[in-house]
């Protein structure tokens, strides 16, 4: 397999796996030095991943994201970059194991699908780049939001159970986690809205219709509605805290579901030169 096909998929997956191991070790022992090593490993992994995607795009003449595999790979990378930004800013590493478990999962899925070999004319459309970028940023925002929600729930349980363990030492406060979740999902929601609008403009130019009830479109709309509901619920007093975290995770499961469903079950216009085309 060529380097451009290996690095942004199995190569990066392996490196993220190594980083996950290092972060897990740090999580257990808590030594600053161990944490530093884990961070360095993750930075290296992200840079290799980025370089791999660049090599893939250059060697092939058309850049990612073309295809579900590449999109997932890009979502993973931007999630990691957002995480690294949060880590550098807050000097908190506690979220890493949570984020990395999710990212490694996404990367395995991405690697199984692999890169696309041809490009559909649709993807050469002027609006495709912005549309895909917006969707990818939205997915990354939601992914980080989901990671934060899981961390919130885990910490909430420990605090309520009066048995604060390691989690409590390593994670930011509940209030902090909640505020970060809000920011991440709000960002995701804004980009998803933008992505949907750009997508329908793109659809109009390519197929002559703004909206075609394609399965992917339906799932994305459902995601949009779920996150919108979560954001509205937040304003109500009895829907704060752990409840909004649960709603967030339900909404995120629709993100995962749409990715899984599209690539497994349906032959839709959104499969981008994958197996079906």
């Amino acid at each position, binding site marked *: 397999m060529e380097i451009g096909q290996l690095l942004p998929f199995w190569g990066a997956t392996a490196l993220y796996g190594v980083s996950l191991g290092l972060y897990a070790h740090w999580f257990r022992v808590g*030594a600053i030095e161990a944490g530093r090593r884990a961070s360095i490993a993750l930075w290296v992994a992200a840079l290799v991943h980025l370089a791999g995607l660049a090599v893939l795009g250059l060697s092939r003449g058309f850049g990612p994201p073309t295809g579900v595999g590449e999109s997932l790979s890009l979502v993973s990378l931007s999630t990691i970059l957002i995480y690294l930004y949060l880590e550098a800013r807050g000097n908190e590493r506690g979220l890493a194991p949570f984020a990395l478990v999710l990212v490694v999962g996404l990367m395995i899925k991405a690697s199984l699908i692999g890169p696309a070999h041809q490009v559909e004319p649709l993807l050469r459309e002027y609006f495709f780049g912005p549309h895909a970028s917006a969707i990818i940023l939205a997915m990354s925002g939601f992914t980080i939001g989901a990671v934060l929600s899981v961390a919130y729930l885990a910490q909430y349980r420990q*605090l*309520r159970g*009066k048995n604060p363990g390691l989690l409590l030492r390593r994670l930011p*406060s*509940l209030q902090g986690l909640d*505020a970060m979740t809000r920011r991440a999902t709000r960002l995701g929601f804004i980009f998803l809205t933008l992505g949907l609008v750009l997508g329908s403009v793109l659809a109009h130019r390519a197929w002559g219709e703004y909206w075609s009830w394609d399965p992917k479109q339906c799932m994305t709309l459902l995601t949009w509605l779920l996150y919108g509901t979560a954001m509205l619920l937040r304003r109500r*007093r009895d829907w704060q*805290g752990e409840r909004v975290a649960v709603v967030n995770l339900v909404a995120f499961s629709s993100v995962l579901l749409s990715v899984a469903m599209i690539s497994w079950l349906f032959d839709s216009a959104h499969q981008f030169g994958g197996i079906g085309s």
Partner: protein
Amino acid sequence: MICLFGQNHRTAPVEIREKIAITPEKRDALAEMLVDCSDIQESVVLSTCNRMEVYAVSEEPGQGRQCIDTMLARLHGVDANSWEKTIYFREEDDAVRHLFRVASGLDSMVLGEGQILAQVRDAQAWAKDQQMAQDVLHRAFGDALACGKRVRTDTQISEGSVSVASAAVSLARKIFDDLADQSVLMIGAGDTGARTARHLQMFGVRDLRVCNRTRSRAETLATELNASVVPWDQLDDHLSEVGIVVTAVASNDPVLTRERVETALETAQRRTLFVIDLAVPRNVHADVSKIPGLFVYDVDDLQRLVLDDEESRRAEAIKAEEIVDDQVRRFVHWYRARAAVPTLNDLRSQLEEVRRAEVEAIRNKLGDEADLELVERATRRLLNKVLHSPTLELKRRVLEDDPDQQLREFRSLFGLEPRERK
């Protein structure tokens, strides 16, 4: 020889410690005495509320000790006998190890506390300014600081709570992002509550409200803590406004029941409430903890956290001791190798004299300058080669036990004069 003269919280009660504590005013006077003392070449004074230690480099440690004893007696105007039994005196590796353990927080009252590191740094800087510490103690203190930092980055010795009040604060900080934004309602005006409230204030809490059945006691405490007073009958209104509640009321019946809290929270902006129940019997009914979004901790819960943390700090202390061992070994390596330097210099100059004399002796038989240069170079090389293995061997031997003995033997082997003590 490095030696240590000291007294700490383990060897002396505060009544004796305060007798020889070095206040800033006395520090200058002591420094002057230490610099003047002919038996002491270098010194550093480390004085905190838990310890008073003088580290010194002295050729005659016995006399150095005497000297420090009389100095302190003179300085404080007290008889040296009054503290004699509380003093410890250590030499060489033991003194160094003690310093490294102190800097690592292993000798502190609260295992792993961080303040001592800054105090060691201050002591080092001050001694350097006063020209009391030269290379040996300056290096020893520098290495001790490095050791202390390493212990704190490589182990978790400073993690965890040491008291019920600090456990409560660290929980509060895991619930709320910034305690400065949180209001605290204190129910009851006793000492235990006040201690926790003070801790919360130390970590940023600005809005503290005291509510007590007897208003006058609430007022007294409120003045002391710079807090506001809440009348007993308005407790419920305030319950809905705050994020943290501390209860410590002597009462047989619970003060806060589930109904009461739920009703109060109906009008609240948010639903997160951290309840710290310090009273026995408890002031908060067990059902209260079932309300979603509430975190209720009683004294036993907090006490358990403190014990858990203490245990894990002890386990970390074992790792810390290993780090100290390693750092001490490195320092002693440098320190002893340093002791070999004068002897090696003596040997070199003695051989150099012989070499020069021999070259001088054959000088007339040599042809031109080029010949002389050749002989000079050859003999110098010869000298270096001959010295190579004894140098290494001596540096190795001084690391073994009794370096003084090793140096003496080496000197007699090469026919060097015994070195005079300064």
